[in-house]
């Protein structure tokens, strides 16, 4: 039997115009989003301003749209569920993107791009409500040919009630795979 476990992995920020979003990883399944003023754009530019406001977005492995996170291993061919959610009702999730990546083998699969499913036979996107999206996908056999990790890379655009949009990226690393 081939199985694997999922855990969240560090993710850096993606600058957006004159503002940036810093993802604070706490080594569980959640991370915070701080909207900050920045003085430099681009990776490595860093944040030097003060926090304007803080929001919270969670991304985790889950088994249904009910947004209950779990750490259950997945078998080859089994569907993988990913929940993206926030409890802030003044923020909505839009334009979700998600890919599976395996660095050492260079295997990859685009699951969702801008909330459009790439292969409907393999994946499904459920917009549970404006604050919660559930992505379910079959993990193809090619990702289980080695014990190398599989990462889940993604991004979600968040839209605030005010109409302002921000881009948030995330990464989940799939480790402890047993062959």
């Amino acid at each position, binding site marked *: 039997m081939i199985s694997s476990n999922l855990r969240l992995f560090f993710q850096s920020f993606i600058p957006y115009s004159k503002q940036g979003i810093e993802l604070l990883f706490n080594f569980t399944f959640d991370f915070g989003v701080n909207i900050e003023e920045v003085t430099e754009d681009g990776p490595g530019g860093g944040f030097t301003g003060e926090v304007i406001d803080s929001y919270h977005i969670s991304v985790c492995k889950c088994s249904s749209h009910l947004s209950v996170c779990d750490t259950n291993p997945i078998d080859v*061919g089994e569907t993988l569920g990913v929940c993206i959610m926030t409890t802030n009702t003044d923020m909505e999730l839009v334009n979700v993107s998600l890919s599976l990546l395996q660095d050492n083998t260079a295997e990859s699969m685009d699951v969702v791009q801008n909330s459009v499913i790439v292969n409907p036979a393999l994946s499904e996107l459920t917009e549970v409500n404006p604050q919660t999206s559930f992505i379910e996908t079959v993990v193809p056999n090619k990702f289980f040919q080695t014990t190398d990790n599989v990462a889940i890379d993604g991004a979600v655009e968040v839209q605030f009630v005010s109409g302002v949009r921000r881009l948030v990226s995330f990464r989940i690393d799939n480790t402890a795979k047993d062959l």
Partner: protein
Amino acid sequence: MLLYSPSCITAVITLLITLQTTASIVNWDLIYQSVDSHFAEAATDDITLTYMIGTQREYSIELYASDCETSITGMPSLNMVPTISQDYELDPLHDILDVVIDVDVTEITSSNIWDESNDTLEFCSVVHLLSGVEVIKEE
């Protein structure tokens, strides 16, 4: 003039509470069921492997030696015919895949799937479910 009937209102409410799902994942089940063998000189169905697979999935089948990597040699007449059958009233989610293998018994002992030490025929069947050319599931 607009008319509102109870059925229209019900339909609207139902629509509003339905989750917005963009697609529906198809069934990728690939389940080995059985192997049946009855060797006979004139028979063409010496071995039958049976799998249960998701309805209308594309598939491929390959036969190897027992290590599941080495090609079978010494059996030039080896033939394999896959057939799909359905009983959607009984099981609408699955097709039955039968892989019928015709073995020339006169070639068995010269092949690399014959184990002389215990007089057994040992080979490996690999079935793939495909999405285009990509292997989604392997059994």
